């Protein structure tokens, strides 16, 4: 990490180890080219693509994005995804932060048991709740509804949210709480005026992580929502692929529409996102 060597020296040293450089370049191509390929296809028409699948766009057909958005329903799917994901992330953040604070700060009988029960469901295979959730949702008239999917998403992301926030909240110095108490803060004031502001970096991390995971969620969306007008983006893309298998160009445009929000979030918050993803795994 602490590499004081000047950049140029390092570069020449790296270039000398040609095999390593070759591996780096090859892996980077392998990792990044598929995405670049889809990006170029998204601004080419299907007939151009059929003529040559690997050509650089000669004319940039930005109007394809407009067509995908309005004529191929990707606008509807995008709106559905946004509605469901934003609502679910907002609610799960509030519920999760409150529960995490309670588990991190207060001593009470059953604290670790509650934590363990919440945490352990991270490893559950989704099928164990999938089929009966379908029954429950149908029973309550929440099948085929964005509200139903939102509720399920809140439940899905709750364990991870509590787990990440509990870990962070537990490291907030106890002195802060003692001082607040002496100043006459009540329990809820402490939560709102100390835990939330101090914990904001961790909260931001969970928000970003939850957003990306739910934005990409597929299994519950495909089982719990059937109406095309209510589908989220992943389901919409798959439906479009099923209906217009040959329309490579428009499928690529739809894929880019689904990916762009994630890429934007990543561009702005890459450090936070990576922190969130690594928090659970490093020991």
């Amino acid at each position, binding site marked *: 990490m*602490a590499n004081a060597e000047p950049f140029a020296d390092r570069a020449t*040293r*790296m270039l000398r*180890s040609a095999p*390593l450089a070759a591996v*780096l370049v090859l*892996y*980077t191509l392998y*990792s*990044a080219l*598929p*995405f670049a*390929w*889809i990006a170029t296809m998204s601004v080419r028409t299907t007939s151009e693509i059929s003529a040559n*699948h690997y050509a650089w766009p000669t004319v940039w057909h930005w109007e394809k994005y407009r067509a995908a958005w309005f004529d191929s329903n990707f606008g509807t799917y995008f709106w559905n995804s946004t509605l469901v994901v934003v609502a679910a992330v907002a609610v799960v953040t509030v*519920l999760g932060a*409150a*529960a995490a604070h309670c588990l991190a*700060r*207060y*001593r*009470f009988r059953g604290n670790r048991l*509650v934590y363990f*029960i919440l945490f352990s*469901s991270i490893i*559950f*295979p989704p*099928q*164990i*709740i*999938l*089929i*009966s*959730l*379908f*029954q*429950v949702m*149908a029973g309550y008239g929440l099948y085929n509804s964005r509200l139903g999917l939102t*509720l399920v998403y809140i439940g899905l992301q709750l*364990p991870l949210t509590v787990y990440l926030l509990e870990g962070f909240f537990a490291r907030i110095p106890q002195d802060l709480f003692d001082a*607040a*108490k*002496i100043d006459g803060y009540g329990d809820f004031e402490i939560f709102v005026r100390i835990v939330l502001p101090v914990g904001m970096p961790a909260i931001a991390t969970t928000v970003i992580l939850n957003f990306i995971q739910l934005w990409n969620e*597929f*299994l519950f969306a495909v*089982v719990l929502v059937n109406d095309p007008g209510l589908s989220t983006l*992943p389901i919409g893309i*798959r439906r479009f692929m099923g209906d217009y298998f040959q329309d490579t160009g428009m499928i690529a445009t739809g*894929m880019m529409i*689904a990916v762009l929000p*994630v*890429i934007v979030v*990543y561009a702005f918050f*890459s450090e936070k996102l*990576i922190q969130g*993803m690594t928090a*659970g*795994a*490093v*020991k």
Partner: protein
Amino acid sequence: MKGVDTRTAAWPTLMVFLLPALAVYAAFTAYPVFRTFYNSFFNIADLDTARYVGLDHFRALAGDSTFRASVVNTMIWSFVAPIIDVGTGLLLALCLYAGVPFARFFRVAWFTPVLLSYVVVGIMWLWIYNYDWGVVNATLRATGLGALAHSWLGDTHTALAALMVTHAWKWAGFNMVVCLAAMHSLPSEVLEAAELDNCGWAAKLFHVVIPLLRPTLLNLYILAFIGKMKVFDLVFIMTDGGPLWATETVSTYVYKRAFNWNTFDLGYPSAIAVLWFLVVIAFVALLTWLFRQKDRLEF
């Protein structure tokens, strides 16, 4: 400090904090889990009528050859693929740790696949494996190896491996950032010795880096293992379990039995889900215990 006890609170206060989360957990996780267990003893032809069948579903599973194929595929995937994922992640992290130029760019390029949804990754790789114009076959033909061009997802011998490659492509970046974070949290003097800049790096890798990162690597292995035991989306999108159940996984089979085949019975797939739930928990417990034992023996 008597009087300023911030570590305890009255039960009503605790409940205001905890109860909403517990209610969501009870409604959308705990209750469905119990209901699935309950369902697995019934024949549920439609949502209102259920006929008790005891352990019949579990007995039927023993003779279900599709189920057996799906278990074998999932097991192969779960035990083999994490080694590829974690190994690739570790090597990539070492490259970045050794201080290659443009490290930031490389990290972004390698991590991006992690962020893509399975639908996007699946369609992308359907095209990469396309027989006529996919990248793989196009490259083979262009380099005079056209004889090797292949219907990668259409052949029972290569379909599962092709899916595993795609899955590894998506997840290598995740393992890379975790390994990198673990390396940065180690004492720097120790790892400086293990930089990849001169000969004997393989020895350093195996004698210095891997032992130091053991806990992280084992953790990543378990995480990847859990992920593969659940694998659904990619299979569903790319092959739907085919050809001839060559890529069927337990998750896709549960889905098909519950929602796709017209054998409308939610009891049988519930039984599979219950069995698999127990298998996953048993394996995770076993792996965690095994890895702990080994740690203890070494010290």
